[in-house]
């Protein structure tokens, strides 16, 4: 599928808006279906589901929150669990915001753009960094963000309404699309030896760290694997 060139901000925004017709949007929709069904089981109303999709826009954290509430945890415990799960958004935002910048600083636009930072939008922007000039990246990102919020909302409300009367093999396959999409996109966007090392180390470290430090495993994987990849990549660049 050829990407149409988006040379003006308007064309880039439109390109982002069309993002709901893409593989990542289909994967997000499938995950959102499961979240909607989970939220219904957890006793939330459709209004709560819509509120979370619009104000959080971070499905894994929404799942953690609903799970905590369904287990009758205290509000403080739920907030702590969500805060911990959401920490992954920090490196995503830190490495996405500078890519959106062109010339002068726009704090308000950057804060709005940050609302749409999620793994999917991070991956998609990284995939298009080469084909989108810096001035049109921000409109592209905003268009894609709006498009994916709408996709998530539609998926979550559909999952809520259907209450997930779907055969288990289909549910399993839908759950399976997320890791496939994440890994294939990481591989597709990896440009340097550091990227390849970070992917390999992240994949290898996480099962061990999951058993050793449950709850902190993803952060530990990111910090240990990422730092090692950074150091090894830099050593390789500088040569012996």
């Amino acid at each position, binding site marked *: 599928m050829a990407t149409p060139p988006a040379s003006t901000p308007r064309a880039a925004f439109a390109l982002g808006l069309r993002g709901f017709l893409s593989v990542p949007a289909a994967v997000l929709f499938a995950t959102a279906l499961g979240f909607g069904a989970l939220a219904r089981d957890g006793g939330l109303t459709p209004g709560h589901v819509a509120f979370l999709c619009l104000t959080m826009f971070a499905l894994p954290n929404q799942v953690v929150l609903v799970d905590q509430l369904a287990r009758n945890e205290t*509000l403080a415990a739920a907030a702590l669990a969500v*805060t911990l799960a959401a920490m992954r958004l920090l490196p995503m935002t830190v490495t996405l915001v500078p890519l959106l910048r062109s010339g002068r600083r726009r704090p308000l636009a950057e804060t709005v753009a940050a609302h749409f930072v999620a793994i999917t939008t991070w991956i998609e922007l990284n995939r298009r960094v080469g084909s989108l000039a810096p001035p049109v990246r921000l409109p592209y990102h905003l268009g894609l963000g709006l498009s994916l919020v709408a996709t998530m909302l539609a998926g979550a409300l559909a999952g809520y309404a259907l209450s997930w009367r779907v055969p288990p093999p289909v549910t399993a396959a839908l759950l399976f699309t997320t890791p496939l999409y994440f890994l294939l996109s990481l591989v597709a966007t990896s440009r340097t030896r550091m990227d390849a090392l970070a*992917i390999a180390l992240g994949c290898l470290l*996480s099962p061990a760290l999951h058993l050793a430090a449950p709850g902190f495993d993803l952060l530990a994987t990111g910090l240990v*694997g*990422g730092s090692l990849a*950074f150091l090894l990549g830099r050593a390789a660049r500088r040569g012996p």
Partner: protein
Amino acid sequence: MTLSEDGFGGYLALLLAGTLATQVWRWIGVAVGSRLDVGGEPFQWVRAVATALVAGMVTRMIAFPAGALAAVPLGTRLAAFAGGLALYVLFRRSLAAGVLGGALLLALAAQAMR
């Protein structure tokens, strides 16, 4: 705590434990990221951390899955994942072929074992 109806208290709870707990990282990210230069080493390091973190989520979702996926044996999950990777390469790096093909392989295997 439980939420069973659309009251103000319920939305306030979701705002505090969900929205604010999530958005705070994005706000800190803007503050830190707007000081970073894309070509600089700090940016490269954070990029490596973010990449390793997402890669870590991939193996965690495959090795320690939730819900219906947990009922599929680990060997089948790994084989279907390898199948998805192979389809991605075979179809000239097509994301659709890899993701949908891998998911289809898993669904067929899960159905066959029922």
